[in-house]
């Protein structure tokens, strides 16, 4: 009798479970163990979008596929080219270490998580037509594996892209190896390192370690009549000319420089900060040598600073096949 009762309960439970709308026998995602570069803080990953092998693979497929574009003419990777640290044209910020970012785009158009900025990209930049994906048998299978769903939604696309982007982490440049005691700077690089992290060169206030950005928006004294910058978003006159501090990781690969790509080389950038600053009402007080035109570096110091900036190049990152188009 007792056995019968237990058996009945088991059968009932099985029946109830099998009747739940969440029943997804094909949905067995594999948890992804994200490796965080040494010296980086922990990455906050939303509870409702845990990283899985299947989700990342789907995100990678979407990243390289123009199917996201309403006109199917361009993909994320059209502008975000791996060999250039996932950037290419001047007004495109690189896709590197974005799992730690919270202010998005040059003008700070969006604040929030990677999912939030992906919502912007999918729905307001690409104007993705869901029917294109829904009519693709291969994608139907990939979404099923990644999210256990037969219904492809904007949210699933955004979650998959966010998962892939959380893997694009660069933390194995010479700079990192020196921090870990695995390499040494040359004398010139070391001078550049000192200039960068002291108020002599004063780069660190806007390009803080470990990501070489402070994530904030600044008017860095480019012009006496600056482009609007964050003013376009906030409408606050105090935000005129403010743009996001870009990461300097892999800066060697991301020319041209500034929000409008006005500088073709790192040497031009350093010359600007040395003696090319221009006054305007909203220049950030961190540009404290504005009245002198800049920090007034010697030619040796300029060369040293450029040499140090090149120690932020992570060749492994820009060649990592796990981040490239999946051709299989």
């Amino acid at each position: 009798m007792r056995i019968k009762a237990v058996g009945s309960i088991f059968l009932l439970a099985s029946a109830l479970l099998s009747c739940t709308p969440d029943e997804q026998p094909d949905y067995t995602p594999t948890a992804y163990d994200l490796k965080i570069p040494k010296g980086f803080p922990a990455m906050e990953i939303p509870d409702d979008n845990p990283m899985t092998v299947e989700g990342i693979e789907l995100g990678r497929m979407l990243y390289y596929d123009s199917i996201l574009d309403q006109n199917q003419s361009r993909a994320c990777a059209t502008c975000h080219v791996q060999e250039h640290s996932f950037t290419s044209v001047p007004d495109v910020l690189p896709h590197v270490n974005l799992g730690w970012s919270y202010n998005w785009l040059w003008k700070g158009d969006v604040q929030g998580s990677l999912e939030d900025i992906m919502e912007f990209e999918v729905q307001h930049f690409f104007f993705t037509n869901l029917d294109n994906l829904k009519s693709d048998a291969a994608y139907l299978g990939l979404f099923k594996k990644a999210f256990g769903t037969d219904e492809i939604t904007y949210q699933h696309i955004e979650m998959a892209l966010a998962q892939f982007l959380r893997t694009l982490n660069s933390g194995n440049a010479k700079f990192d190896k020196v921090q870990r005691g695995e390499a040494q700077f040359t004398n010139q690089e070391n001078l550049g390192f000192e200039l960068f992290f002291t108020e002599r060169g004063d780069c660190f206030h806007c390009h803080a370690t470990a990501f070489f950005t402070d994530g904030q928006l600044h008017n860095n004294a480019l012009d006496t009549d600056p482009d609007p910058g964050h003013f376009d978003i906030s409408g606050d006159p105090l935000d005129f000319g403010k743009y996001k501090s870009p990461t300097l990781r892999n800066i060697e690969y991301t020319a041209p420089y500034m929000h409008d790509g006005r500088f073709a080389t790192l040497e031009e950038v350093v010359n600007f900060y040395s003696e090319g600053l221009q006054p305007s009402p909203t220049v950030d007080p961190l540009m404290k040598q504005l009245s002198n035109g800049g920090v007034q570096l010697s030619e040796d110091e300029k060369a040293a600073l450029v040499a140090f900036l090149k120690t932020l190049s992570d060749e492994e990152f820009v060649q990592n096949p796990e981040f490239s188009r999946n051709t299989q």
Partner: protein
Amino acid sequence: MKTFRVSVFAFILATFVGCTNNSIQPEATSVNLQFLHLVDNQPLELDNIKYTNAVGQAYSIKTVKYFVSRVTFHKTDGTDIAIPDIHYVDIRDEATLNYELSEKIPYGSYSGISFVYGLVPEDNVTGSLGLELDQLMEWPMMMGGGYHYMKLEGEYISDDVITFFNFHSGSLNGVAYEIHVDLPNSSFDANASNLNVGMAMEISNWFQNPVDWDFAYWGSGIMGNADAQATVQMNGTDVFSVNFPETAL
């Protein structure tokens, strides 16, 4: 019958004890810190070169960011209630100008309040305060690591030239310059559920008493200057005053 009487007595006793337990919860006050910023005893007006320091230089204030930590309430019976919080204030971020401490303080009579302006060495550890503060307030390892205690920035006029100043303080190469502030006239009685503590920074005092600060002499950046850091520490002891407003900001 005797058993019944005992049971009734026990029930009544238990009921009373239950009530008593509920009513003898220690009474405690939640404390809300309100940060005010003044120059010459008037509310600070940002971005306006309208102030004059003790050496006659006109100046403005554009940035005020700092840490307040280890707020301690001193009871008249000699015991201290130390709150372990670290709070970041940014004058341009209203959400940071009000802060409810994470722990309540017991009812009673208090002789005063003290706190640390900046961070004591145990709290001043690179990477310990979260990503945003790591990026906003980093004090480079090159200069000893940890965080800026304060970023006070603005413009000054010297020889008819308008120049930025970055009055940044922090621990330099292992030497700590945090300021242990004993707030004057900060005695109070905690006898209600909430207490507002107004902490007013008189910004002009950073630039005087005991040392009259000459922007041109010290230069625009002082992070690597131990004498400047020591001077900031000395000048900072009388920067804060306190009041107890009845309403929250």
